[in-house]
């Protein structure tokens, strides 16, 4: 059993970064995720593992520091919250285009604009439909507990390097700020420079005499080559869709109705499911863990089992609900429920929405 601790979600993520053998963190403060860089600065990871922590002059600089270090084969991450993540988008598009591995977290707050510092899930479109420019995807992991804030850092780095892709940990102000018990995984040693050079021959670690130089770029002025590169990316995304879907089914075996949710909405919805079951309503929870890849196939299978209605619960005006609709392809009714702009819905509200929007008519 690993070390047990009571921690905030943001602190667990920061501690996990050190333990995952990260080489560097570059970030810029913003509520509700400033604890990540504060924790790292206080922990002196340089003394623990040699990990570098740097407060950048902006989120733009931070993501470009990530880009540079990732291109040189290192395990690097950044984190921010919604307005800051918007600033990072050009850099993320470059990272995706150049096929570099990195992990970054968005502890989402309500928008648009400066919005509010309260929790939200309104960055779903930005996270799963691109965010930056161009035809690219990133793996999106949605933690629903402080435990997963820690675990997904390690998983994120594994996936990022396996597929050379940015991995986003899409959290929210609830998960980032709340305190829970977390079992921390054991320290993974950082790779040495020699190990990096050996393991990642694509990385710019300095060109050895008589070898080909490495170039990190997303540019090709020849459109035919650019189309080829795009096709290659699309094939990679297809592999990810086939192999990396992650989700959790709760009480879905006999369910007539299913609530789909992720992150803190999934926790609230789980409570609503318990309350509904007490009333004799056969409802289950489909908790998304990966938002990309989205578990479309798994939803279709549930459709075949005769699910009569789907309720997408998210703290937004209705974003993930579109993917549920695309996935179930009209097999049954799909509705959305969610409070937003920084308001967190209650289990009672979710249950009422289920009864009124799905079961009621």
């Amino acid at each position, binding site marked *: 059993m690993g070390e047990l601790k009571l921690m905030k979600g943001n602190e667990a993520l920061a501690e996990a970064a050190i333990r995952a053998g990260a080489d*560097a963190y570059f970030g810029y403060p913003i509520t509700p995720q400033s604890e990540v860089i504060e924790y790292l600065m206080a922990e002196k990871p340089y003394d623990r593992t040699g990990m570098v922590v740097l407060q950048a002059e902006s989120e733009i600089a931070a993501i*470009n520091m990530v880009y540079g*270090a990732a291109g040189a084969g290192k395990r*690097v991450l950044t984190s921010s919250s919604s307005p800051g993540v918007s600033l990072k988008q050009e850099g993320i598009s470059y990272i995706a285009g150049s096929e570099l591995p990195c992990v970054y977290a968005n502890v989402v707050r309500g928008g648009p604009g400066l919005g509010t510092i309260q929790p939200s899930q309104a960055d779903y479109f930005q996270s799963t439909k691109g965010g930056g420019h161009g035809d690219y995807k990133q793996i999106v992991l949605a933690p629903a507990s402080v435990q997963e804030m820690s675990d997904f850092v390690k998983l994120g780095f594994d996936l990022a390097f396996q597929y050379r892709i940015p991995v986003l940990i899409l959290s929210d102000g609830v998960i980032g700020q709340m305190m829970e018990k977390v079992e921390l995984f054991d320290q993974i040693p950082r790779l040495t420079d020699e190990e990096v050079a050996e393991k990642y021959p694509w990385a*710019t670690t300095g*060109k050895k005499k008589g070898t080909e130089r*490495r170039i990190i770029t997303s540019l090709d002025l020849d459109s035919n080559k650019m189309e080829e590169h795009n096709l290659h990316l699309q094939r990679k995304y297809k592999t990810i869709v086939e192999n990396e879907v992650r989700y959790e089914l709760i009480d879905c075996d006999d369910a007539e109705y299913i609530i789909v949710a992720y992150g803190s909405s999934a926790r609230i919805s789980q409570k609503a499911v318990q309350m509904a079951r007490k009333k004799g309503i056969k409802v289950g929870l489909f908790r998304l863990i990966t938002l990309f890849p989205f578990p479309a196939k798994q939803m279709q299978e549930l459709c075949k089992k005769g699910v009569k209605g789907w309720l997408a619960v998210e703290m937004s005006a209705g974003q993930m609900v579109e993917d549920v609709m695309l996935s179930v392809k009209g097999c049954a009714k799909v509705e959305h429920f969610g409070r937003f702009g920084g308001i967190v819905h209650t289990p009672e509200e979710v249950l009422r929405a289920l009864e009124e929007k799905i079961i009621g008519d």
Partner: protein
Amino acid sequence: MAEITFEDIVKPENLVYKKTDLMTDKALSYCPGCGHGTAHRIVMEIIEELGLEEKTIGVAPVGCSVLAYEFMNIDMTQAAHGRAPAVATGIKRVYPDKIVFTYQGDGDLAAIGTAETIHACNRGEKIVIIFVNNGIYGMTGGQMAPTTLPGMKSSTSPFGRDVESMGNPLKMTELVAQLPGTYFVTRQAVHTPAAVRRAKKSIRKAFENQVNKKPGISFVEIVSNCNSGWKMTPTDSNKWMEDNMFPFYPLGDIKVDGQLVK
């Protein structure tokens, strides 16, 4: 008299100049007469002469020199417009023993990337910045740059730069020299053999500073021409540069070994 053959001439003792192996054989994509090619070459010659090839990583952002990685035969990273100092910071911080440099245009370094430039300099990142100032946005077709001279015409200042409404040209090099994080700051040119010799000496010093882990950035501005953007012949552009750019951007060292030059 015996006939002189090719083999008689091509002998090591007769070699007077050899292209550095750190430039690829690919034909430069720069306009004939442009200073970028010479600037590339002397940077690569210095890396070769100092034996740094195996541990150097270059960063070239968007601008005419975005394709530097086609010509510089070392490990290279292409960066987003303006972000090279941040990208270089990321690399240098995880590889403190490697040699990292950026190669940036004036639009890149002094407009969109002002924050990254100033903060990398202020943190004293131990990197080299090569700053090619041609007073214009070459790559995108000759628009006004932050460095465009007062009254100078460009496609977005077709009647000449009006400083009242368009601002004054920015002397980034003098500006960063004021920061404690810069260790060596100089302004050079590459339009004549003598200028190339001086520029090369400065670039050598800049890279040596990094090798010797001197505290802070070494910043080398190269005032250069953009004959296409300026709509001049190469020779006219060099003359115009001497007559107009140099008085405003005087050549020479501004800060040496961490001390401002009086």
